């Protein structure tokens, strides 16, 4: 066992930190919870591309740097500490790129991988539908195979960033007769295609983060089918373990913890520093321990990937745990701030610029997106611990 990093890894971390300090000074971004995904900047992504920090785990033949997943975790830990604006390339880097490498053909690899690595294109992910949430296999969007193309009709929902992305990586039904999980395929769809409509959805934090995406007789070239027709659900199951794996599930509101700790040390209440209050001390120490446990889980997942294994149980467990920590943090922060914990960003008198209540609102989504907490626990129990699966109606 070794819980330390190599000299090379320490150097990488320092390099990333120096870069972020420099960009912070220039005013590229602010250190704000959720900033990493909400502050969307192709320009910043280009800068990262120049450093070789997009697709860094990919093999050299696809333009990657062949770094380990531990290296990528180090990069991400710094990006998230600073909440650098990585939303433009994030989904392509984490998920779509690796999926294309696994299941795409040579043309697709040549077409998309360099563009992802160079931050030329951004992806959204189209999985959920109005009647297919946790029960994802029930998707109804249908891609009918014609002579020269697929014709897509249907609807996706909760599609993060579809209003800004160039492409959507999605699943659709391609066989209406086959059993549900044997009639789904994966597609790359240009969001500028005629017949695609993106309708904004405003989340409870008042932000346009996700969307509904409608497909109305959208013609999709045949070469945009990824992998094997009707095997899309199986392909996807291998991909979501990447989606669940990262530190971005632990550190979405990381700045809140930093600001809060600083606040309780500096501010006074009842004639003494807030941090002298036993309840505050206990609460923050507990959060710190929970955070450090989450960090170990994340690095364990990265280590598992580095060993060449798919972190199935580990990734589900990690995400289930980490997102609950993020929720506890936002709740504890609002309570330590008291009435000030009700004041939103921009308000006069808002402590920590309103990050605590804002984060409390965002936190609802943390245990839902990318597999709900309960579905993840099912995965841990059945696939991880071997508990028997109850028969479901399908």
């Amino acid at each position, binding site marked *: 066992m070794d819980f330390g990093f190599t000299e090379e890894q320490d150097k990488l971390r320092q390099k990333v930190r120096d870069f972020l300090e420099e960009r912070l000074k220039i005013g590229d971004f602010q250190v704000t919870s959720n900033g990493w995904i909400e502050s969307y900047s192709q320009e910043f992504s280009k800068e990262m591309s120049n450093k070789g920090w997009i697709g860094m785990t990919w093999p050299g033949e696809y333009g990657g740097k062949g770094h380990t997943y531990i290296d990528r975790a180090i990069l991400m830990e710094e990006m998230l500490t600073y909440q650098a604006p990585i939303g433009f390339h994030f989904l392509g880097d984490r998920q779509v790129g690796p999926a294309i490498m696994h299941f795409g053909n040579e043309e697709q690899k040549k077409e998309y991988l360099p563009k992802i690595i160079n931050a030329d294109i951004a992806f959204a992910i189209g999985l959920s539908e109005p009647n297919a949430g946790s029960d994802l296999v029930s998707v109804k969007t249908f891609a009918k195979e014609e002579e020269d193309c697929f014709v897509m009709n249907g609807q996706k929902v909760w599609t993060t960033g579809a209003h800004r992305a160039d492409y959507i990586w999605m699943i659709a039904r391609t066989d209406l007769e086959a059993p549900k999980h044997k009639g789904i395929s994966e597609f790359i769809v240009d969001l500028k295609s005629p017949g695609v409509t993106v309708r904004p959805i405003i989340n409870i934090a008042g932000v346009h983060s996700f969307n509904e995406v409608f497909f109305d007789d959208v013609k999709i070239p045949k070469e945009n089918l990824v992998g094997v027709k009707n095997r899309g659900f199986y392909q996807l199951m291998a991909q979501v373990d990447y989606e669940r794996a990262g530190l971005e599930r632990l550190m979405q509101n990381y700045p809140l913890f930093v600001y809060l700790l600083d606040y309780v040390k500096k501010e006074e209440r009842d004639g003494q520093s807030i941090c002298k209050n036993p309840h505050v001390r206990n609460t923050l120490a507990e959060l710190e321990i929970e955070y450090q446990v989450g960090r170990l889980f994340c690095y364990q997942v990265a*280590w598992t990937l580095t060993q060449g294994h798919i972190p199935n149980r580990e990734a589900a467990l990690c995400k289930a745990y980490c997102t609950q920590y993020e929720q506890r943090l936002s709740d504890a922060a609002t309570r330590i701030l008291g009435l000030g914990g009700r004041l939103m960003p921009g308000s006069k008198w808002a402590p920590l610029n309103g990050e605590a209540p804002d984060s409390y609102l965002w936190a609802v989504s943390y245990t839902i997106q990318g597999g709900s907490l309960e579905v993840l626990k099912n995965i841990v129990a059945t696939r991880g611990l071997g508990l028997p699966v109850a028969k479901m109606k399908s």
Partner: protein
Amino acid sequence: MDFSLSEEQEMLKKTAHDFLTKECPPSFVKETIKDERGYSIDMWKKMADLGWMGLIFPEPYGGMEGSFLDITVLLEEMGKASLISPFFSSVILGGLALLEGGNEKQKDTFLPKVIQGDVLFTLAITEPNGKYSSDGIESTAAKSGEGYIINGTKLFVPYAHVADHIVIVARTGNGLGPDGITLFIVDSKTPGITYTPLITIAGEKEFEVTLDQVEVSYESVLGDLNRGWPIIEKVWPKVIVAKCAEMVGGAQQALEIAINYAKEREQFGRPIGTLQAVQHFCSDMVTDVDACRYITYQAAWMLSCGYPCAKEVAMAKAWCSDAFKRVTAKGQQIHGAIGFTEEHDLHLYYKNAKSWELLYGDSTFHREIVAQQMGM
């Protein structure tokens, strides 16, 4: 980073697992708890033959010169088997105090015997005030002719009734601070010492040790006069993490017992493990167990490397204290009434979880240390 055990550690783990599965089944643990001596001499000899008592001691004394990480692996398996033995008291509490604080003569005299399992040591530190800080030491050792006379009451002294030597922590200077505390190696048969068994929740053999005008020689001072507390401070992080290692194993076993039961036990015409309420319990349990393991091994690794790790040690004990208890409580809930019986095995772990939570500081105690380490 590397989350895997080395080949040697894997071998040690397997050897320990196989040995304890055979020699220390739950039926044996239950008998041992009821036995007055509280361990099997035959099994103790076998453990010594395996080299376990010498695992972390230097070669010149007959040890195997293993790392603290190595003994963490062994202790995890001991906790998994709920082994009842003087290993912790003699090797961890007594042995480490000797190793860290003893002069060459003391180490030459005692360590080989501890390593061979021929003599048993224990440590008498805690007093009726229940404190782990230096101001909890109220027992006194007053200079008298060629030696000292010790007076006081020690509590929770493990295996004091069978120990050959007791390391006694007593005050030789004035005040209540960390200065002026001295450790003494005392023959357990010295006149003036009386032993009264305590009835502990998990059946561990612990004693009240009263010291009434106990005369000891100057040579019995462990290390230097008045410099006893720094020895305790050096040993204590290892004691805490060693206990955490046992908790990791205990939590792992409680989880395995629950999973097996959830697969077998049928209600409503199907195994209860198909019910999501039970599945989610099990998922929460394995999360707690994995976390116990990583956070404990992180601290053990830092101790092995000699890095400062006050915060990591406190985090490990805070986490394991809460998590082991949560895991066993959920295990009980999954089992229903059968878990509430002595004939079932789960209670061994349920009791250990509570007992070990309170030993060496519970989560609240250690969170305060973490708070200080965070600059609060």
